[in-house]
């Protein structure tokens, strides 16, 4: 009977030990989990802060960019306006010039046509001249050939009579 009691006590003590150990482990685990959660929270917070910082910077940059673009846009518009103004001025001058040039235009066209026709006439004259020169050259060539033949003929005829 006593022997049974010892065993029960032993088992009970073991179980109690296990139980206590389990409790201790549980407590420890819980504490660790809590610590981890805290760390996670800390990291989360830090991340959120980081995001906030980045968003802020992006917004700043965006704003800066928009400002710059707007400034540029203004300048481009100014330039375009100036350009339009210049274009209008140029058109006005062109119209003015056309008005002033109108009397000269017809004169110029006449002159150009005259120059063209003179050029054509000159070209024809040159071509005719070239043909004439060619003919003359051919004539001179055949004449020189004839002279040469005549010279040979005279030489041979002289020999005939000498003999």
């Amino acid at each position, binding site marked *: 009977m006593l022997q049974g009691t010892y065993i029960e006590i032993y088992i009970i003590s073991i179980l109690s030990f296990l139980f206590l150990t389990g409790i201790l482990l549980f407590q420890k685990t819980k504490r660790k989990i809590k610590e981890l959660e805290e760390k996670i929270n800390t990291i989360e917070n830090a991340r959120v802060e980081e995001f906030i910082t980045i968003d802020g910077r992006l917004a700043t940059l965006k704003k800066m960019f928009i400002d710059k673009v707007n400034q540029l846009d203004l300048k481009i518009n100014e330039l375009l306006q100036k350009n339009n103004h210049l274009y209008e001025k140029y058109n006005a001058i062109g119209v003015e010039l056309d008005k002033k040039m109108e009397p000269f235009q017809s004169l110029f066209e006449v002159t150009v046509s005259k120059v063209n026709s003179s050029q054509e006439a000159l070209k024809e004259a040159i071509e005719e001249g070239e043909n004439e020169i060619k003919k003359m050259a051919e004539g001179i060539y055949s004449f020189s050939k004839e002279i040469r033949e005549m010279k*040979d003929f005279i*030489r*041979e*005829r002289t*020999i*005939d*009579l*000498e*003999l």
Partner: protein
Amino acid sequence: MEETISTILIAELINPPELIDHMTVLQYEDMLGDFQNTVFDIVTHHLECYGYNSFGTDYEWSIMGEELRVFLYSGHVQFDIRNALLIAAKIKIAWLISNFTQNIVYEGHQISHIGVGINCGKVIKDLRPWRAKIGQIQPNVEGYVINLTRHIQLASREGSVSQILVGQNLYKRCQLNSQLNIAFSPQKSLSFRGFDQKIPIYEVVSFINFEIIPSMPPSLQGGILKKIEHIIKNKVPEPWLFIILLRSYISQLAKGDDENLAAKAVDLAQHALEVLDYKVVIYNMLGWLYNNCKSVRNLKIA
């Protein structure tokens, strides 16, 4: 009816009996064909080159068998005479260098010669009614002088140098023309059938004219001098060829073509002196060679 002064040339083949006797009909036909083609080439080419206008206008010619007849009546008798003499010399050369004759020479037989009679005188150009009836619409040249020229041509068989015989009219005109370097044999008077009196004839013993060889038809120009040299080398009895060949050498020397030709010309001239009776022209040629060729300095020869 139109009267004009015409220069008449009648040429005919003179065949040695030895040649005719050994000839078959086909061989004779070959000979006749060669003769007619040669004569045709010479006459057509010559008349065209020397500015004759057209058949019936200033010349007429015909070939019948072995006989050629040419009538020249350009209106300038001296011009026609020169052309008749050139044609005569050219047909004789062309016949000698023809394939037929060259073959005969190669075989060592006697060759056929061409006998020529030339004269000039008045002729008429008329279209007889009977000719018109048989369809001959061209006026025909007729006259006493043609008959005479025919007899002169027949007498050319007796010639010993060129066998080109001329009548009295042509001879007199040649004597008046100082531009024509021609020499004739002493006059011979022959009796012809149908003529009461004796007819004077003369043989051409020398006719110097540089145009003879250069104005041959292009088809006959190839190797012409070599063929003439071959004829002379084979001692064919055509002594007038010496003068033609020497004149051609002198032309080449005058152009400065070949100085070595001078020695060849001197040799030929020496040979000619042995063969020809009429030597004056050969002496003149030697004199020319001496005067104009540096390589000929043998005064004794000149």
